[in-house]
């Protein structure tokens, strides 16, 4: 009997974010979605459930008023229950405080053996949440899992990819792991699963429920704007591609790069 918590972030759809005339991002038209890579984490959890009888998968998510829309998606993928952290006090958290809150929720849920997170999120990609949750819980971390993820009783085994190559590792649960996209291909739920997801149990915790205390971000983010392009933007005439290629080769030689 293993209880798995997958961390699920609701993120702006970054490809749809427009950049305004002053360089500031306009998120109003972008919409919200499950951070793509989190679906690899959910897929990993659901596959472990399929191979290990008695395993239960929880989706844990911190977010705003529309959080349930994203949570339903991962319930349809095979998570059994959802725990949502919503509170007006969470509007001004940073990655560090979110990780602390997620860890408090894992403790409150109790009997959790394994936390699975994506290596990074779609919008912030700081890669901090998984490692921070591990340290908050005092649990070991297996980051960058790419292959052969499996459970043998209460021991987790996996291959992870680090700077120098691949490490085969094992760890006694409880533990936190982060997964890379190459681990699996997230499933597309069938209509029946989407319909069933509506009836799966959902719980909501507030800051008070978690005993969160004062929320104090460690980072300020005073500015976020599109980097200015200082590229030349020279378009070569394309009526004769051989001539264009020769012109390009000459330009590159003149730049001193070939």
């Amino acid at each position: 009997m293993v209880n798995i918590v997958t961390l699920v972030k609701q993120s702006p759809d970054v490809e749809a974010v427009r950049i305004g005339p002053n360089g500031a991002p306009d998120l109003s038209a972008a919409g919200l979605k499950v951070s793509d890579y989190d679906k690899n984490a959910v897929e990993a959890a659901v596959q472990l459930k399929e191979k290990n009888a008695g395993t239960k998968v929880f989706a844990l998510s911190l977010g705003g008023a529309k959080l349930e829309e994203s949570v339903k998606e991962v319930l349809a993928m095979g998570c059994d229950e959802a725990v949502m952290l919503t509170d007006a006090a969470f509007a001004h958290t940073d990655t560090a405080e979110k990780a602390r809150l997620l860890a408090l929720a894992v403790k409150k849920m109790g009997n959790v053996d394994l936390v699975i997170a994506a290596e990074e999120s779609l919008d912030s990609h700081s890669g901090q949440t998984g490692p921070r949750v591990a340290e908050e819980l005092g649990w070991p971390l297996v980051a960058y899992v790419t292959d052969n993820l499996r459970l043998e009783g209460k021991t987790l085994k996996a291959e992870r990819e680090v700077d120098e190559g691949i490490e085969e590792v094992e760890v006694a649960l409880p533990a936190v792991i982060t997964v890379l996209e190459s681990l699996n291909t997230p499933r597309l739920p069938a209509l029946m699963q989407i319909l069933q997801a509506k009836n799966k149990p959902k719980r909501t915790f507030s800051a008070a429920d978690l005993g969160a205390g004062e929320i104090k971000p460690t980072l300020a983010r005073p500015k976020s704007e599109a980097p200015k392009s200082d590229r030349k933007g020279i378009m070569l005439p394309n009526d004769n591609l051989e001539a264009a290629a020769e012109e390009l080769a000459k330009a590159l030689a003149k730049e001193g790069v070939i």
Partner: protein
Amino acid sequence: MANAIVWAPEPRQAFEIIAKTKELGLTPVVLHVGAGDAQAYIQHGAAKVLVAEQPNLKDIQAGPMTDALADAVKQVDAKAVFLSGGRRGKEIAPRLGVKLRAGVVTLAQKARSENGKLVFERMFLGGKTLATEVPQTDIAIATFPARLFEPLPANPSVKGEVAKLAGDVRESKVKVVAKKPRKESGVNLEAAPIVVGAGRGFKSKDDLKLAFDLAATLGGQVGCSRPLATDLGWLTDEYWIGLSGKEVKPKVYIAAGISGQIQHTTGIRNSKLIVAVNTNKDAPIFKMADYGIVGDLYKVLPALNNAVKKQKGA
């Protein structure tokens, strides 16, 4: 001047960060794990080296490394910790952030000192923006991508202090059973002076020969966008350039049949020159190109290959 702890698994990356640390007006103190030449850091500008010989650090796993870095901070009363932005640094920095209650900026593209605070910029919103991030804590932690900074030239006559790292570090609960190389090796995209990036414009795996031929003529390497490494599986992850893949900064990046999704362009943004070849004149890649040709890569790449050969012969 306040001390900053520097650690990277590769000495060259530590040298790069030492140079930046000094530019920020901080005193670089390097944590060195295991055997090796501690004086090399000093010759590249470190004021002091703390050598960690604790056996629990043997596999440089995140748990014990977090303790070692926290001990190093304590030992020299450091106000900042700068780590390499590779996978090792990226798993350690957030854990150290929890342990020291410190703000962490991962993969900072820029850093400066402003009114006594460290100010960083990093890619945000999937690469659409650069966000300015300022740690609000007594200690600031950051990781930097490799090759962002130039190391200082080595000065063999400089001598500095080498001390032992004091303190115990936890035993790693994660056991490394085996280590093996990646499935494919020999591709070192980050070091390649010229990179030819292949995207969805290629119709089959065999056609990638066009990119490899051009790269060979230019003395460069081939890289690819996300779908070629993931969905299509034509190339391994080692070739994958982008937000979730490698970041390259060659002298010339030639984007062939790449539309320019943010996921990819974040990995090429620091290239000196960007060349784009695409049949779609509205492809976003042209907006960040120095030179662009609207045309079929199946014609342009062989023509460019010939033109480069001619140019080199000239």
